[in-house]
């Protein structure tokens, strides 16, 4: 719980959404204090976008409530003065140019720093004088990102904003999130990319099957994170690695080939390997889905009291 005296940037209470008989979001509660970068994780179809669309007032909750800086989410005219939004699939009117889209969003939006916007256009290498028809998915996403980051809205709601960006632009995006946090803007970042969330978020919530199954700070997230190592040695090495700190699930595929799972910092393993003749070393990070399967199994039983 954040401090009860401060109004949270975003407060979601017992939020549920049904589409007919299908339950898309089931009793989700969370709170994001001002200035926090909150990662909203989950596999495809977990209910992330549905939750965000309820935060935006685009969908009406079946149950529960959402408040943005204390303003009910369905009072869109007031609530949206405190936020800027980047949708998951950015669709623009094909006959508008990027600049016209930016001008429109700035003209109607919650207040925009035009100098910073010009800088962002440069940094994201966006050509704003082309029609949206000619933009790729990534370029459309850049338009929405530039518009959102250039606002001074105290809450940025970003729904999988980097799915169409190249690694360079993704780095720029991470910088922008850091700058926003530095200015005291809260960021609600939905993603299914663990690396991105780990790089920018201070706290994460994990959604699965419409339910919030985990809310944790970043150190705890690191504990969740494990990587897989494939090592090939020049000559058989016996049981030299069995007791190294952080190594789990050590398997020898042949006398010189081994696979192991590593949790925690890789220092001890690297020191142990340095003593051996290593021919090749491949580090593979498990996908978020693998982690989910690892931690929760196929049928998820949400922990009671997972709300914060």
């Amino acid at each position: 719980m954040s401090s009860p005296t401060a109004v949270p940037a975003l407060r979601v209470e017992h939020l549920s959404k049904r589409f007919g008989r299908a339950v898309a979001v089931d009793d989700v509660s969370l709170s994001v204090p001002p200035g926090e970068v909150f990662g909203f994780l989950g596999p495809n179809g977990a209910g992330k976008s549905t939750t965000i669309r309820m935060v935006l007032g685009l969908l009406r909750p079946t149950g529960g409530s959402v408040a943005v800086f204390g303003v009910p989410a369905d009072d869109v005219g007031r609530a949206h003065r405190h936020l800027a939004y980047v949708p998951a699939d950015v669709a623009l009117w094909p006959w508008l140019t990027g600049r016209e889209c930016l001008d429109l969003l700035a003209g109607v939006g919650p207040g925009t720093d035009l100098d910073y916007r010009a800088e962002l256009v440069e940094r994201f290498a966006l050509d704003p004088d082309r029609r949206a028809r000619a933009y790729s998915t990534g370029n459309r996403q850049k338009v929405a990102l530039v518009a959102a980051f250039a606002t001074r809205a105290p809450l940025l709601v970003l729904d999988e904003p980097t799915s169409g960006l190249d690694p360079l632009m993704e780095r720029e995006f991470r910088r922008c999130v850091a700058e926003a946090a530095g200015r005291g803007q809260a960021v609600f970042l939905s993603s299914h990319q663990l690396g991105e969330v780990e790089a920018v978020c201070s706290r994460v919530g994990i959604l699965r099957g419409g339910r919030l199954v985990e809310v944790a700070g970043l150190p705890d997230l690191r504990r969740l994170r494990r990587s897989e190592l494939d090592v090939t040695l020049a000559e058989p090495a016996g049981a030299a690695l069995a007791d190294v700190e952080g190594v789990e699930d050590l398997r020898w595929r042949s006398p010189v080939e081994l696979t192991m799972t590593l949790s925690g910092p890789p220092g001890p393993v690297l020191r142990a390997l340095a003593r051996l003749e290593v021919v090749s070393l491949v580090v593979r990070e498990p996908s978020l889905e693998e982690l989910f399967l690892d931690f929760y199994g196929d049928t998820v039983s949400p922990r009671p009291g997972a709300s914060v």
Partner: protein
Amino acid sequence: MTAASVPAAAGPVVTGLAVRSVRRGTAVVTVLAAALPALVAVQFRRLDQALAGPSLAALAENPAIRTLFGPPVALDDVGGFTVWRTGTPVLVLVGTWAALTASRVTRGEEEAGRWDLLLGGRTRLPEVVLRHLAVTAGAAALAGVAVTAGLLLAGTAVSGAVLFGALVAGTGACGAALGALAGQLLAERRAAAGAAVGVLLTGLLLRMVADGVPALAWLHWLGPFGLLSRSAPYADDAVVPVLLLAAADVGLAAAAWWVAGRRDVGGAPLRRTGAVRARSLRSLAALAVRRVRRPVLAWGAGLAAYFLLIGVLATTMTEFLAENADFADLAAQAGFAGLETVSGYVSALLALLALPVGAFVAGRVADTAADEVAGRLALVHGLPVSRVRWLATDLSAVAAGAVLLVVLAGAATWVGAATVGAGLTSGEALAGALNVLPVVALCLGAAVVALAWAPGAVLPLGSLPAVGGYLLLVLADTLGWPGWVRGISPFAHLAGVPAVPPDVPGLVGMLVLAAVLTAAGAVGYARRDLRG
């Protein structure tokens, strides 16, 4: 490992997809196209010929009616009467539907990027285009068969029923081929649909000119509507015009296939090029104006041409009646006095303005619904603007566009009439045009109600007050239906301005109903889940 299943040919799979994309619309259009003539034919038999004869003749000689439906042939025959009265509307319905559908399933699907997936398979672009065109034309043929079946069941002559059905099918195929061809030439579905419907309905204009100006009667051969006149089912039963229509359809389809084989997927030969002009766009009002600007220009060009022609034909049509005093007397006896005057003629035709402008309004609201599904409104709805305010801004621009179109049509009528010295004042022409605005307002109200509760059916429901209301009035007048049925039609409450003074209570009543519908729809829209 199981063997991968590879279908023998990819083509039938594409055809199956095309069938799925058109089947709902096909069902609706087929039922409408079959029911309308059959209904008219059955009811015509029940009419007391001795009583109805003179009034029907008077109606037939009404210059406005002649302009719209063409000169009557074989009015004493069930089939002849039915074709004269329903031929043009059914051809417009099936042809326009086919043009819109063909451009939607070809360029629309391509524009949305769904064909990239399809063309990643074993099929090539020309084949995919041709299969979608064939399915749309097949759907139109189904409507033609249904028309024939309906007329045969109603007991009309076989040759006429077959010929009329073939003309309906041929017109539908013509619309489909135009839609597919425009979809190959133009990069946007909207532009392609507009161009296809525009070309198709130019055929209607040509037929009107051919009817009105004897020296230009050969224009009949240049469009499906004129070919219907030349074929004259139940009278001449000429087959050559039908064959000509079929040949034209094949030619248009071949052209679409040829262009499809010579262009990039996603590209088009006729593409707007040139530098992008930067214009200020800083408010929702500016966005709303941008959204209606191009449609207003396109509809405006079409309406101006049509009503200019109406104005120019004013004296030709009224002279005919003046020279045939017997008809004028007959008309007066049957309660149609004043039809031989220019103002009577103009008032009857300006009332029709409600149909295209009503469709324009419904189309704009349908575009908002489409933008919502495509996710284009997500960014707008992320702004600090309530949905009702956004809708009010957008609808204001649409309403302003509708007023502009109506004024333009009135002005065009006046200019046309003035060039032939028909003696119509600009005030009379504008009054007649503005008189239809309450019906347009009803369309707007119905469209907003649909946006709230049936967002997939905004266009048909929004056009219903104008298009459905007009058809209802035509049927009620022709077949002598009871007054309360006729009273459901908005046109029953529209006086023939400028020939007679406006029906003020009727206009006010429609405006109040339109306001109630719009307000209810806006509330419903604000409360529902947004799609997309």
